[in-house]
């Protein structure tokens, strides 16, 4: 954000910018499906569809809440904590350019909607394999407004962090730290899976994981490359940094894997791609390509450490959203305060280039945002949990969420399946005698 201030005086829609932003929006939407594949590969086969559906549900729920009130809370006005309600239900969102950009307000809205969607989907990684789907839908709807929209306002929409000069190019605040620390809270409230810590709960399809990570990286070029809201220098810089940083994270991750286990792992590589993309998210259009590579390499260390440590705790933050997004986003926001360069971004220098204030405000964001995300999510889930059960019973968990929540299986064979005309005919006239359970 803010990188286009120099051209903000332009009041007209630019066709080139708009063309790229339409594309970038579609790229970011693809990330949610990529994330679904990534997550689905990491769970056991009996929970494949439920895990994927949590991401698909974000497309449904978060889009509606975003159009209704989320966008307005995030992007209407300069209130310090939340925005206004002037854009509720898309009022005033039309073909005229969004202030400070050269793209139609509608495109700006859609681009920001795709961010809200993927962030909601990210949080689901903490509660897969046991959370009831209905409770998750309620959580996703409320979280997208009470946590995502508020933090998007702080970081992107003119809220107190942005007003004080905190830099966040593409969502280190509202997307990465918000999802990571909310995931930790969600894991604590919902509780561990019944077999967590007793049995090995292993990924059922590593190929999904690697392909999902590849789709995420692909989409991330729109995510970061679109966050300059055009085709200017900031977008170009962010785009290329999105190639450089994850590559460096991969290299360091390979080395860490070799040191720890003498083998380079595929699921580790998929994780490294995510970590590298996340760390460059806040910094994308603000740091030089050289620093982008350094950030990518450095981010591997804390994230690797948390991923190795977390499964030894009782916290079943199942798919390590905290490590891959929370810690990497935290690292990116903080280090950005050191290495931002005005000669590259035209906005601000970091501490290493003589601007201590920048580092201070990055550090404030890195403290305040995780605190808000954690506490708000914790309270929200406690409230929802008081109204409805958050998780499936132990018996249902054993059976698998695909059958229990959706009445489908990911890898159905059809053997022994008997056609029936309607669900309610199941108990009676099927022509095939079935033993009566005692």
């Amino acid at each position, binding site marked *: 954000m803010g990188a286009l201030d120099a051209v903000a005086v332009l009041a007209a829609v630019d066709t080139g910018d708009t063309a790229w932003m339409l594309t970038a929006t579609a790229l970011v939407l693809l990330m949610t499906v990529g994330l679904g594949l990534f997550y689905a590969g990491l769970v056991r086969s009996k929970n494949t569809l439920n895990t994927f559906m949590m991401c698909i549900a974000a497309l449904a729920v978060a889009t509606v809440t975003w159009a209704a009130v989320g966008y307005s809370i995030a992007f209407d006005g300069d209130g310090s904590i939340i925005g206004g309600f002037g854009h509720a239900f898309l009022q005033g969102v039309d073909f005229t350019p969004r202030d400070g950009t050269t793209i139609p307000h509608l495109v700006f809205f859609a681009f920001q909607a795709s961010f809200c969607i993927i962030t909601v989907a990210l949080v689901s990684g903490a509660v897969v394999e046991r959370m009831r789907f209905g409770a998750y839908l309620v959580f996703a709807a409320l979280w997208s407004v009470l946590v995502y929209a508020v933090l998007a306002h702080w970081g992107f929409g003119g809220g107190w962090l942005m007003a004080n000069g905190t830099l966040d190019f593409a969502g280190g605040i509202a997307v990465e730290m918000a999802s990571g620390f909310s995931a930790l809270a969600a894991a604590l409230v919902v509780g561990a899976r019944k077999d967590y810590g*007793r*049995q090995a709960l292993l990924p059922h399809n590593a190929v999904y994981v690697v392909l999902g990570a590849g789709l995420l990286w692909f989409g991330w070029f729109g995510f970061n490359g679109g966050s300059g809201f055009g085709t200017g220098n900031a977008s170009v810089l962010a785009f290329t940094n999105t190639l450089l940083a994850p590559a460096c994270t991969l290299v360091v991750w390979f080395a860490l894997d070799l040191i720890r286990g003498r083998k380079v792992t595929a699921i580790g590589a998929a994780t490294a791609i995510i970590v590298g993309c996340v760390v460059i998210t806040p910094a994308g259009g603000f740091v030089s390509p050289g620093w982008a590579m350094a950030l990518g390499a450095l981010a591997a260390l804390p994230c690797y450490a948390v991923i190795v440590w977390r499964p030894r705790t009782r916290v079943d933050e199942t798919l390590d959203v905290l490590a891959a997004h929370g810690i990497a986003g935290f690292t990116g926001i903080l280090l950005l305060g050191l290495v931002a360069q005005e000669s590259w971004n035209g906005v601000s220098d970091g501490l290493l280039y003589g601007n201590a204030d920048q580092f201070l405000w990055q550090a404030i964001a890195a403290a305040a945002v995780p605190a808000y995300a954690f506490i708000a999510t914790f309270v929200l889930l406690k409230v929802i949990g008081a109204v409805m059960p958050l998780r499936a019973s132990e*018996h249902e968990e*054993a*059976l698998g969420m695909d*059958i229990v929540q959706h*009445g*489908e*299986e990911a890898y*159905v*064979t*059809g*053997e*022994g*399946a*008997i*056609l*029936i*005309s*309607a*669900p309610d005919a*199941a108990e009676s006239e*099927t022509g*095939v005698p*079935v*033993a*009566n*359970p*005692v």
Partner: protein
Amino acid sequence: MKLVIGIVRPEKANDVLEALYRAEVRGVTLSRVQGHGGELDRVETYRGTTVKMGLAEKLRFEIAVSDDFVDAAVTALCEGARTGEVGDGKIFVMPLDRAVRIRTGETDHGAVTPVAK
């Protein structure tokens, strides 16, 4: 010498293996099977097609043991696999004519979970 066959819920595999290990029963074969044992059918819907799934995923343990270990193996299977719900599975014990350990050529009691305890 008997062949103990246990059909159990897939999610109880680890519990059964642990119980067998504690009972000092060594040597098991495991396969994925589908079966029907009176549990309630699941109804699933794929677009417009609604089906009743008559078969459930199960695991089949095959354990060849000497006579002294039959009770231990059966008890371990029961303890490890029981949830109390319909669909916990079955155990079948069958006579076994001959067993050969391929590596050494040992036969019969020498080739299954040992007599001595």
